[in-house]
């Protein structure tokens, strides 16, 4: 097999992925804008348009016909306006994002979080995330989908999930008031609970946590003469914009050497984007790929959100969610990064170097948990 053939194969896969995405767009548009199945929000939205989405949206590029998605639309009720009529009788979850002050953004969910995390499960190596082993979910729960999603991931893999909660809204308030001692005390309260669980004979092998909590956990254990490997943990799943190449290198070289750690990028609205394997040879570069065709990440121009930047160029992250439960076209995220080319395992565009969007960064408190 020649490289050219490989290259041709890969091109074919990229084209195939694109065809699947266009098909998904058509299916989702038909679903959400059909009076029998769609949700009240989009049906009402369509009633005010002078064009018919079901006729004019035939592929992903046609989603540009929608005006920019306003995140304000997600704030406040009634929440059922987002529930597709076809799912009206199903049990509905609501997940929130933001909300330290004011009304948080809400997203309804039925099974999406389970589907997303089952897909993610396929990317986890069994060697480090052994099937049947128990997990610790150390991070924010409350109105977020994270706790339920991680718990489902654990259960899907045959384990039982232990949980320790952290309320990031409270932490942000403490930080804004400059109450650093209280932030520390609260963090230690969370870590103490985790250490108690890890030492309680539950055979916990897998951990979800955030970079900040992982650091705090590792240091606390070391102060007690132990370490994360000594607790029996072999695989860690984590996420957030703090997951920089430098932080990852530090984690792999010093904090948790020998333990498998996988970065992810996601939020309540989109789902979960997986990372290309992170290696020292690649400078610990972290490139994320959305679970296409259920969701898409684009890197778009800061000045023109409908223009995708060139590969390697910097732009703002724009997310599109395309599931039967939830449709969001072109949501401009609070993050920026560089556009990455399709990759063997994920033959569609990705994003690397994700960090808070420079124009919003000064007003945003990140990495609190």
């Amino acid at each position: 097999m020649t490289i050219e053939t490989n290259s041709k194969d890969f091109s074919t896969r990229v084209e195939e992925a694109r065809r699947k995405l266009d098909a998904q767009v058509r299916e989702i548009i038909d679903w959400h804008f059909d009076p029998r199945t769609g949700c009240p929000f989009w049906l009402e939205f369509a009633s005010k348009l002078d064009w018919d989405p079901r006729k004019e949206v035939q592929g992903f590029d046609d989603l540009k016909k929608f005006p920019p998605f306003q995140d304000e639309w997600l704030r406040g009720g009634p929440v059922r306006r987002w529930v597709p009529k076809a799912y009206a009788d199903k049990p509905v979850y609501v997940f929130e994002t933001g909300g330290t002050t004011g009304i948080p953004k809400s997203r309804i969910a039925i099974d999406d979080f389970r589907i997303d995390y089952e897909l993610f499960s396929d990317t986890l190596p069994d060697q480090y995330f052994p099937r049947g082993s128990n997990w610790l979910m150390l991070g924010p729960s409350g109105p977020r989908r994270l706790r339920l999603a991680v718990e489902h991931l654990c259960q899907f893999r045959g384990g039982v999930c232990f949980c320790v909660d952290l309320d990031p809204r409270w932490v942000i308030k403490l930080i804004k008031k400059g109450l650093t001692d209280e932030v520390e005390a609260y963090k230690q309260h969370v870590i103490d609970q985790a250490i108690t669980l890890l030492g309680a004979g539950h055979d916990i092998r897998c951990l979800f946590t955030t970079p900040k909590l992982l650091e705090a956990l590792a240091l606390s254990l070391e102060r007690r003469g132990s370490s994360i490997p000594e607790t029996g943990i072999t695989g860690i799943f984590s996420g957030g914009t703090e997951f920089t190449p430098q932080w990852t290198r530090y984690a792999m070289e010093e904090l948790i050497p020998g333990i498998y750690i996988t970065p992810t990028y996601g939020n309540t609205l989109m789902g979960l984007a997986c990372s290309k394997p992170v290696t020292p040879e690649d400078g610990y570069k972290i490139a994320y790929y959305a679970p296409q065709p259920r969701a898409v990440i684009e890197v778009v121009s800061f000045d023109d959100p409908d223009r995708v930047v060139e590969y390697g160029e910097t732009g703002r992250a724009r997310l599109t969610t395309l599931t039967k439960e939830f449709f969001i076209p072109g949501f401009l995220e609070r993050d920026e990064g560089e556009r990455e080319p399709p990759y063997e395992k994920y033959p569609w565009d990705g994003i690397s170097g994700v960090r808070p969007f420079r124009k919003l960064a000064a007003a945003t408190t990140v990495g609190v948990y």
Partner: protein
Amino acid sequence: MLNIPILRWGQPYTSLDQEEVIHFETGEPLARVSQANTGLLARDIRAAKRARNSLREIPAKELTAMMKKAGELYARGTLPMGDGTQSPDEFARQQSATTGLPEHMCKANMEKNLFVLSRMDEILDALTRGLDLEILTRGYGIEERGVIVSYQAQTDALGMVLPSNSPGVHTLWLPVIPMQIGLVLKPGPQEPWTPYRMAAAFYEAGVPREAIAVYPGGGEMGAEVVRVCDRTMIFGGLPTVERYRGNPRVQVHGPGFSKILLGDDCVDEWENYIDIIADSVYLNSGRGCINCSGVWASRHTREIAGALAERLGPIEPKSPDDPEAKLAAFTVPGAAQAIWRAIEADLQESGVEHMTSAFGPRLVVKERCGYLRPIVVHCDSSDRSIANTEYMFPFVTVVSCPQDEMIERIGPTLVCSAITSDKAFEQALIDAHNIDRLNIGDIPTIHLNWLQPHEGNIVDFLFRARSLQMPPARAAAD
């Protein structure tokens, strides 16, 4: 271009996260500085005890002698800088190029640091009030009068969150090493030069590498230094001062609001003092917290303001390598414009007069930087909102205020030069809690006596006098 690594207790560590420091006029990158993630420090601080112990193995007198040698190396030697080297001239050029301070001022600051290092023995003797430094090493000893004294170090390493804009402040942390306390330095983003050059000079002079750590980074790194070090000195604006006020672990250095007060007994001869007033306002480009930002008197204030405006108003920006340059550039984009807008708004108030307006526009905007030419403002009352304001350029308000109200109305004042021979006024000034450094007589606010403490005695900040009792014979035997 230089590549400057993090120094983890002396060991270079090149981060994947790097920031360029650039020439403020040309945009040329001068160095690529490794940026630390906070976790590095959180782990490394566990070795702070080793830093202190490595210093305690060297007698304090030897360390003091090393300071003298380090001073010479810092001021005169070519020293390692990242993956290259740096001569004193290169240091001054690079510091000027990234901070906006004229080169000759950078050189003057080098001499200031050299002076402090070369007289370290006298400075320590003054700050410790003649204490045998061995007492700090051992934690206790016997005074000449036969009493056991004990000083307990409050930290193994002092954290320093350093500014970008005022190279003069480095004198404050130089006595730390001979007191056998380690250093955790977080440089200002535009001024990595002094911490690295000083560390290189210390190493060459024989200070153990593991005694000094340097962690460049953003605001989160500064917060981490404060979090993990038991004692930290931090520089910042009023919000930083407010944030750490009353925190015994933190010594915060903010705006100085330094002032010259003319007593009623001297004010009629105000012309005799106009030179020291002008020097206090504009030397070192008015950047320091010790520069005078307010002149207070009960009469003649408009004449004083007019005379100051005549002297300072014509000063113009010059190239940073011009030995006659008196103004530093604002290198942060938009900073000069924002300051000018704030001043312009305050100048609208009734009773406020802009005395330098006749000397041309004050705001000078260049392609990559901005300048503010000196501003003298007259206030007919201390009630004017601009009356007690400080900016980082030669800016001064001349405020009319009765002498018997001055002390209460000047507010917190880092340096107060009171030109008076009125004994009652003098005593009131000596007793005033809102004045830190007090100069009585015609002494410029910028004239520092290094044998005296600055914003708190660093010995008191790092060591606690406490009781320690043992049989006298045993204490004497040690």
